[in-house]
């Protein structure tokens, strides 16, 4: 007999299989994520159901579970380990990390593009014949991108303000996400190649998809209904995915 929803008592008349822990990212995607989860009924519809959304409170009690507020790069970690059943995260982070999580819904918001940019005036000399130094928050994506093109490369992994690197001679180029392109212009950089496109995604732990299947499907259905229209063009696969482990018996 298939018994997906185990009857374990939990507060509020919910069973353990109904209670989801959802991780939302701080930063750029935070406000939209909270608003979406509220409209989806996860956070409760009353505006004060969990108090005003504040990035500083790390755990919010929600109508049907809890919300964890963590750094964007940590979302796939929480979800892969099952510390969160589901999470909202940009595709850029997923491409960089190659975690073993289900990527199930394109939520449409938070669009951005990953691009290679060089100092203005150097765009015609790109790519250079010699080793290029690329500054980026996405070292694995950058390494794969250059490897596929056969460029000798030195990756300079930074945690922010990447566009500064070419100006001060730390790097020849950057690989970073842009939303409007304004930051590039302000820093006298020119885009020379698009590497990937990104929007916010719903990711789900592979055990939770099964042990809490009904609750996860309800969440997916609610988000599918609410999601803003995805970018007109399909997410490009230019960067290629991070390799996930395969070919061995995985216990």
């Amino acid at each position, binding site marked *: 007999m298939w018994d997906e929803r185990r009857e374990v008592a939990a507060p509020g008349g919910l069973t*353990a299989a109904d209670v989801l822990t959802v991780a939302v990212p701080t930063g750029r995607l935070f406000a939209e994520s909270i608003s979406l989860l509220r409209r989806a009924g996860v956070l409760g519809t009353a505006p004060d159901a969990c108090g005003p959304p504040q990035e500083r409170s790390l755990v919010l009690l929600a109508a049907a579970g809890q919300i964890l507020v963590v750094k964007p790069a940590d979302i796939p970690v929480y979800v892969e380990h099952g510390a969160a059943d589901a999470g909202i995260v940009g595709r850029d982070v997923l491409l960089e990390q190659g975690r073993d999580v289900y990527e199930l819904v*394109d939520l449409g918001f938070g669009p951005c593009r990953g691009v290679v940019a060089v100092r203005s005036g150097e765009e015609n000399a790109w790519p250079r014949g010699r080793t290029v130094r690329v500054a980026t928050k996405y070292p694995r994506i950058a390494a794969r991108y250059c490897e596929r093109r056969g460029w000798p490369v030195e990756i300079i992994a930074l945690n922010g303000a990447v566009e500064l690197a070419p100006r001060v001679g730390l790097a020849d180029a950057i690989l970073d996400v842009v939303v409007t392109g304004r930051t590039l212009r302000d820093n006298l950089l020119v885009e020379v190649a698009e590497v990937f496109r990104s929007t916010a995604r719903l990711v789900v732990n592979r055990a939770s998809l099964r042990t809490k299947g009904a609750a996860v499907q309800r969440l997916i259905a609610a988000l599918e209904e609410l999601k803003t229209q995805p970018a007109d063009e399909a997410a490009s696969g230019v960067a290629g995915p991070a390799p996930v482990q395969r070919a061995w018996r995985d*216990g």
Partner: protein
Amino acid sequence: MRLRDAPPPRWQQVPPGLPDLGPVEAARRSALCDLLREEFRLWGYREVAPPTLEYLETFTRGAGAGTADRLFKLTDRGGELLALRPDFTLPVARLAATRLLPAGGAPLRLAYVGSVFRGQEEGQGRLREFTQAGVELLGGEAPDADAEVIALAASCLRRAGAAGAILHIGHLDFIDDALHPLPPHLREEVRDHLYRKAFVDLDALDLPPALRRLLRVLPDLRGPDVLRRARPLAASPRSARALEELAGLMERLGEYGVGDLVGIDLGIIRDFGYYTGVVFEAYGSGSGYPLLGGGRYDRLLERFGTPAAATGFAVGVERLLSTIPDAVTPSAEVIVLASGDAPARARAVRFAAGLRARGLAAVLAFRQGWDEAVRGAEAAVRWVAQVGEDDVRVLDRAVGREEHLSLLGALRAIAGPEDAGRRGGADRVG
């Protein structure tokens, strides 16, 4: 300002991701390994022990050249590249195909328990050395062999006490056949997205509408009515046959009495390059990872020279361990005081030997008086005994009863009647 704190010396640490278990943790792990070994033995699977290190070529031949990057490698004296085994299936397939199967005797039922190594998973929160316990049934055809192996997997979960764990069973033919009409590059792309479970990216590909619909519902293709929902999506005779095979498999698993622990889940996708039919993973509460995984891999053994049908699974011992309750494992069951003169010590030593012969862990306490031994013992130690010239003073800490008994009476009180055979069987390694 420069911090002058010297890092702790290397010799005080172990490299990241490598487990370093103390007695309590090691005892828990051993107990689970013993339980799994015993279960394998009861089903007629004999343990094999391939080496920890093999030629790198063995692994790349079995799993593809791309896997070499993620192995622990080292160089042998002659310059040959060696690698630590990343799983047991490859070494066991090599051993069986080169030596055991040519000697006859198929079907072969083989089991293994031991460490496996994944070199490149540091910082991912995953261990680089962990324990796998599993079986391979070589030369056994579907669906009987699949049913046996899955029933054994379910039996292992049940015996280990993994409450609520369910085996999710899928079939690669169901989806793989739907991909065959695609041009090769697109097929590879779809497979790659499937490995990554990137269903959003799949949805964005330019695919035939029927396939797109199938891929969209794939993560949710499970539950009691899964076959009814999946049949209209089966695009070809081969896909339909996969569903029939699963239906037959479920019937057989019912006969094994494990129907409540299994379910069809067509969203279980394991490696297409390795698995060829029924695949399965166990999920339970308490772990975000599968507790065990396996499936049919009919093409692997031919890469090592002897074609043979094959199926098997491996339990992730540490993962399963994380979902089952902690049992307290005392260092000993009996403390025997051995203070005093030589005759007293000799009596204590002989009494302890008698306890051990009856299967009880006995520890001798030298230089301790009665009160000191009673106070100092771990809470989980049940018995304290002191062997006098004429009798044995025995304290049963479980009930707080102290008695003076004859030598034989004391042995019986502690170990139970000799003919009860209460110990020994569970500890025997098959």
